[in-house]
């Protein structure tokens, strides 16, 4: 087995519990196990409150699982490090910094010298297509542009694993499609491993190699392979293919079933 054959992420029997304000223990994740191979694009989906964001935060290193194994490149995940970077839901840029200044953030903590920092940041700003808006502050950028800056900021530290928390959720349909296309291109070009949380099944099937579906009980219900060939250069066409519709419908049905099961259980216990 060569180094690159080893999974970049190994997750085993992860259980995560939190204490609610009323003092009750709530189990958010209930025995989640999976591997992710280097360069894979994983979409993570499931109902609201099923633990998608929790899982993503554990993988990032913010918070600690109640029990179970989380390994990144063979090492247990203890806190954040530069091998994993997050693209946040609402970009979460520093409002007083320019686009370029925001992209240098991770390079500052990484200890990259100032001059080099600016060069690298400029390269990633170019990469996400914002060269002309590099000196604008976030309040002068559109939602889509802000999200591009968030993506550039994460890519700039050159992480092995990119974690994306519903990054396109708040964008209008047109901007979202443009960014999806851009992300497909970047992924195929840079070979980064990506875990992408989304509610949008269309988005999940379009982007991912595998779609992980979490059940409302915080279990990994199923991992669905999406054998659509890469490069996926024509998303508009892909959406019309039978394979795309079939996968989308399959996941949709799966989620309906999980939802019904959860509702049934709730009725029984009540």
């Amino acid at each position, binding site marked *: 087995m060569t180094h690159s054959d080893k999974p970049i992420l190994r997750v085993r029997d992860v259980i995560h519990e939190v204490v609610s304000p009323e003092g009750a223990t709530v189990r958010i994740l209930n025995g989640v196990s999976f591997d992710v191979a280097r360069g894979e694009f994983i979409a993570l989906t499931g109902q609201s409150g099923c633990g998608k964001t929790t899982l993503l935060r554990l993988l*990032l*290193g*913010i918070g600690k699982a109640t029990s179970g194994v989380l390994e990144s490149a063979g090492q247990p995940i203890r*806190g*954040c*490090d*530069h091998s994993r*970077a*997050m693209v*946040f839901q*609402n970009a*979460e840029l*520093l*409002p*007083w910094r320019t686009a370029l200044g925001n992209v240098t*953030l*991770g390079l*500052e*903590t*990484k200890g990259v010298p100032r001059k080099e920092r600016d060069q690298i940041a400029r390269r990633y700003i170019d990469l996400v297509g914002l060269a002309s808006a590099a000196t604008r*502050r*976030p*309040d*002068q950028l559109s939602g889509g542009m802000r999200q591009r800056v968030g993506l550039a*900021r994460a890519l700039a*530290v050159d992480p092995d694993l990119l974690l994306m928390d519903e990054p396109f959720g708040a964008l209008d349909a047109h901007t979202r499609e443009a960014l999806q296309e851009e992300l497909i291109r970047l992924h195929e070009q840079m070979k980064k491993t990506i875990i992408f949380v989304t509610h949008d099944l269309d988005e999940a099937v379009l982007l991912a190699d595998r779609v992980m579906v979490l059940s409302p009980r915080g279990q990994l219900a199923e991992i669905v392979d999406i054998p659509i060939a890469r490069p996926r250069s024509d998303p508009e066409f892909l959406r019309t293919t039978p394979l795309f519709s079939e996968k989308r419908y399959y996941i949709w049905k799966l989620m309906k079933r999980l939802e019904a099961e959860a509702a049934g259980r709730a009725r029984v216990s009540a």
Partner: protein
Amino acid sequence: MSDVQKPAQHHAGGFARVSAFFKRRRWLLSILSLVLLLGIWEIGGRGGNPFLTSHPSAIFKALVDQISSGQLPNAFLQSLQPLVLGYGLAILFGIPIGLLLGRYWAAEASFGYYFIGLDATPLVAFLPLFILWFGLHLTVKVVIVFLFSMTPIVINTWMGVKGVPRTLVEVGKSFVGSESFITHKIVLPYALPSIITGLRLGIGRVVIAMAIAELFTALSGLGGLLLKRSEDYDTAGTFVPALVFMLMGIASVGLLGWLERRIAPWHKATSAGNE
């Protein structure tokens, strides 16, 4: 022709034009009001008893006298000393204390209410004690200015730091920022507009604190000059330091207001209508 047939509307149009003229030049109304007030005061005041009342031209003459005799500049410099020292100390202690209260819940739970309490206390009530403890000279004045102006700085810094979104702190953590990096590069810049608001509220109190300190302790500075003039029944001369107090208050608050708008131009755009 239509104007002649509809004189009422023509009149309304003229009024609307005048109204629009002043609406675009609000400062003109402010000046007009001031000139009118000073005019009435001048005319009304001239006939009055000079021991009891005064009027603008007499006050202006007293101002020129006090400047040329060196009284006013001396008093002003004397007042400036406790002002700068007290306010400087208030900034020096206020911002770090506010930062600690906002950043660490244990500090907030242990000490937060002291500052809320101190802020709500009429510190003038403690003046006799302060005089007992700190004497009548520079120290007591610095202490009074410090205590008056520190609490708004502490409280606004504290609230500003608490207002930093948790996700933004998580951004810092996710990029492996140290506690110091997060404080300096994320928390303090985010809280800056609020901190400057605290500085502005603080400096508004500084002039009040200084006047109180000078009137109740050793006679010095502008407050001392004011008392001396009034004991001599020099009413016009009494107005001069009072007006200087007023101008100092306006100037310092104006300066901080200007700073507030300049330092965080992004603030207005992201949280319109804040404060």
